[in-house]
C-alpha cells in the first residue's frame, strides 16, 4: 500500500516536470533555430528574475493574474468557459474608478465601496452570459467573447470628456477622475519598490475559493454539476441556477482583478489600463489545475517569465521569446496532464485486473481444495 502512494506522488509530479521540460526544449529549439545560444538565455533569465526588485515586480504582477486565474477556475470547475473575464474586469475597474473618483469620504468606507462596485459590475456583466445560456441556450464561449468586445466599446463611450472622463493635460490622455489620496490602499514598503497591499485580498480570495469549493455544500453541488450535470440534476441540484450563480461569482471575482492596479498603483482608469489579463487568467488556471495553490504558482511563474525576459534584452536576446515560452508551457501542461491521467488510469486498471485475477485464482483453489 505504501508503494502505491509513492507512485501516485511520482505521477502527480510527473506532469509539471514533463511540461516544464517540454517547454524548455521547444524554447531552446526556437532559440537555436534563430541562431541564439539557449542555455545562456535561461541562465540570464534565472539571475535577472531572482533579483530583489524583480521579486517585488513579480509579486505585484502576479496579484491580478492570480485573481483572474481564480475567476476562470470557478467556471472551469463547472465546465463553463468564462472567456469573458477580460471584459468583466475592465468594465468593473472602469466603473469602480468612476465611483471612486466621484466621492471623497474616509477611505475606510470608500475603499469597500469601490471594491463592491467592481464586484457588482463584474458579476452583472458575467450574468448576461449566464442568463443567455440558461434561458436561451447560447454558448457562453461565444456570448462572453461578444461581451468582451462590447465592454471595450462601453468603456470607450463613457471615457470621454464630459461623460465620466476628464482630460489629463500632462499626459494628454483621458482618464477618470483620480481617486482621492485618502482612499489609496496601503502598500508594503520594501528596500526597492513597494508591494501592493491588495495582495492580501488576493490571498483571502484564494482561501475563500478553497473553502467554498471544497468545504461547503454549494461547492460540492458546483463540482458535481461540472462532472455530470445529469447526475447533479437527478440528485436535486438545479443546474440552471448553478450556472447563473457560478457566473455571478466568477464575474465578481473578475471584478477584483483590476483593483490592485486601481487602488495601489494608478488610482484612475485611463486608456492604458492593463488589458488582456483575462486571457492570462485562462492560462494561469490551466497551469494551476484549478487548485488555489496551483493557480498561485502559475500566476507567479507567468509574472516571473515576463520579468525575466526583460533581462534578456541586455544580453542581445529578444524579450519576445517570452511569448513562445508561455505558449509552449500551456500547451505542454495540458498535454502532459492528459498523458499522465491516461497512464494512471491504465495502471489502475492493470492493478485492479491483477488483483481480481489473484482473487479469482484464490477462489478456484478454495473450490478445488
Amino acid at each position, binding site marked *: 500500500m505504501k508503494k502505491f502512494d509513492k507512485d501516485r506522488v511520482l505521477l502527480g509530479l510527473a506532469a509539471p516536470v514533463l511540461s516544464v521540460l517540454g517547454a524548455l526544449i521547444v524554447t531552446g529549439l*526556437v532559440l537555436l533555430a*534563430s541562431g541564439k545560444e539557449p542555455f545562456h538565455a535561461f541562465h540570464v533569465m534565472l539571475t535577472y528574475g531572482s533579483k530583489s526588485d524583480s521579486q517585488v515586480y513579480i509579486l505585484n504582477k502576479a496579484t491580478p493574474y492570480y485573481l483572474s486565474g481564480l475567476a476562470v477556475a470557478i467556471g472551469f470547475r463547472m465546465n463553463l*468557459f468564462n472567456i469573458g473575464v477580460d471584459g468583466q474586469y475592465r468594465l468593473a475597474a472602469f466603473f469602480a474608478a468612476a465611483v471612486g473618483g466621484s466621492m471623497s469620504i474616509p477611505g475606510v468606507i470608500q475603499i469597500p465601496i469601490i471594491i463592491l462596485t467592481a464586484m457588482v459590475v463584474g458579476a452583472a456583466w458575467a450574468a448576461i452570459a449566464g442568463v*443567455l445560456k440558461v434561458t*436561451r*441556450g*447560447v*454558448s457562453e*464561449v*461565444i*456570448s462572453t*467573447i*461578444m*461581451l*468582451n*468586445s*462590447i465592454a471595450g*466599446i*462601453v468603456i*470607450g*463611450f463613457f471615457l470621454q470628456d464630459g461623460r465620466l472622463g476628464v482630460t489629463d493635460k500632462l499626459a494628454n490622455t483621458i482618464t477618470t477622475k483620480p481617486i482621492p489620496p485618502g482612499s489609496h490602499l496601503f502598500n508594503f514598503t520594501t528596500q526597492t519598490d513597494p508591494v501592493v497591499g491588495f495582495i492580501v485580498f488576493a490571498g483571502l480570495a484564494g482561501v475563500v475559493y478553497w473553502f467554498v469549493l471544497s468545504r461547503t455544500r454549494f461547492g460540492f453541488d458546483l463540482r458535481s454539476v461540472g462532472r455530470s450535470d445529469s447526475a447533479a440534476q437527478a440528485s436535486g441540484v438545479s443546474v440552471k441556477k448553478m450556472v447563473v450563480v457560478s457566473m455571478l461569482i466568477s464575474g465578481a471575482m473578475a471584478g477584483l482583478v483590476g483593483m490592485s492596479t486601481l487602488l495601489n498603483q494608478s488610482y484612475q482608469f485611463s486608456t492604458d489600463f492593463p488589458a488582456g489579463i483575462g*486571457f492570462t487568467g*485562462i*492560462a494561469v488556471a*490551466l497551469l494551476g489545475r484549478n487548485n488555489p495553490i496551483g493557480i498561485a504558482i502559475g500566476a507567479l511563474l507567468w509574472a516571473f517569465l515576463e520579468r525575466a525576459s526583460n533581462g534578456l534584452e541586455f544580453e542581445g536576446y*529578444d524579450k*519576445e*521569446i*517570452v*511569448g*513562445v*515560452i*508561455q*505558449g*509552449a508551457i*500551456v*500547451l505542454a501542461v*495540458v*498535454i502532459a496532464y*492528459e*498523458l499522465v491521467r*491516461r497512464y494512471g488510469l491504465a495502471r489502475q486498471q492493470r492493478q485492479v485486473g491483477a488483483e481480481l485475477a489473484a482473487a479469482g485464482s484464490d477462489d478456484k483453489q478454495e473450490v478445488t481444495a
Partner: protein
Amino acid sequence: MTATATQTPPPAAPRAAGGKGGRTRLSVPVILLIVAAAIIVVSAVRAIAGADDVTSSGQIAGALTGAVPIALAGLGGLWSERAGVVNIGLEGMMILGTFFGAWAGWSLNPWMGVLAGVLGGMAGGLLHAIVTVTFGVDQIIAGVAINILAAGVTAYLAKRIFNVGKAATEGGTPKQSPPIEDIKSFTVPGLSHWLSTLEKHHWFLISDLAGIVGGLVTNISSLTLLAVVLFVATFFVLWRTSFGLRLRSCGENPVAAESLGVNVYLYKYVAVTVSGGLAGLGGVFLAIGTHFYLEGQTSGRGYIGLAAMIFGNWRPGGLAMGAGLFGYADSLQLRSGSDSVHALLLLLAVLLLAMAIWKYVRKAYVSAGFALGFAVLLAVWYATTDTVADEIVQASPYVATLLVMGLSAQRLRMPKADGLPYRKGQGG
C-alpha cells in the same frame, strides 16, 4: 445523389434527412423573393432617410472586404466542427497566416505569400489536431493554448525578421512588416462604370441595385474570388461527396463511423488541418489587404468567424450571411457611418413591425406585443435624433450576434459529437 449515399451508413441517414427536410422548406424562388423584398424595403428606407451610403457601392465593397476574412475563418471552423473538433484556435491560425503571408509576400511575391500563409495556418491546424485528436486534450483548452503560442511565436519571429537588415530599411519594425505588393484585382469592364453612373442618380431601387451590384463587380481582389470558390467547393465536398459524408459522420457519431470502417482519426486530422489552412488564408487576406503584417491585426476575427459559423447553423450559406452582417457593420464603422446606422434604426423598426404583424396573425399575442413595443421605441429614437453615437455603430455587430443567438440558439443544431474527445475503439 445524397439520398443513395446517406443510405449506406444507417445511423447517419435519418438525421441527415431530417436536417435537410427542415431546411428545404425555403426553396430557391422563395429565397429570391425574400431577397427582393429585403432590397425593396432597404431602398425605401434609404430614400426616406436620405442616407445614400446605406447601399452605396463603396459601402458594399467595404462590407465584402470586411466579410471575407471572417468568412474564411468561419469556413475553417465549419470544416473542423463538422468533423467534431471545436476550433477556438482559429484566431491563432489566422495570426500565423498574417505573419507567414506577409513574410513570403514581401520577400517573394504576393501569391507565394498566399501559399505561405495557408501553410502556416495548416501547421497551426495540424498542431491542434495532434493535441486534440491524438492526445485527446480538451478542445477549447487546446485552442486557447494555440492562440497564446501563435501570438508568441509570431511576435518573436517578427522581431527577428522584420526588424533587421533589408526588411528594416524597407520600413519593417518589430510589430510591422515591410510593405507587400498588391495582388491582382478584377473589375468587370463597362458594367462597373455604367453602374456607378446609375448609382449617382439616387433613384429609388435602381440606384440601390446599381450600388450593390457595383460594389460586387468593382475592384474585386482575386483572393475574394478564391474565397467564393472555396465556399462553393466546401459545400460540394462536405455535402455531395462520400468523403464529406464520412467526415461529417465523424462529427455526428464517430463510433458508428468507426464501425463502418471510417478511419476517424485520419478524417479529423484532415478536417482540422484544412480548417487551419482556411483560417490562414483569412489571415493572408488581411495582411495583403492592408499591405502589411501588423501585430494584433486579426483583432479577434477568428472568434467572430466562429460566431458567424454558429449563427449560420454550421452550414456554409448561413455562415456567409453571418459573415456578411459582420462585414457590413465593419464597413459602416470604417466609413464612420453614423448616418447609415441612424437610417438602419428605421429599417429595424419596420422589420419589427412586420414581425409584430406576423406574430399577431399567428396568434402569438405576447411576442407581437413585444415586437410592436420595440418597433415603436426604435421609431421614436429615429424620429427624435439626427445621428447616433459612433460607439453604437461599433457595438452593432456584437449586439446583433448576441440578439440573434438569443433568439435562434434553440433552433440551431450543432454536430452531435462536436467538442467531445474521441478515442479509437471507445465504442467497445
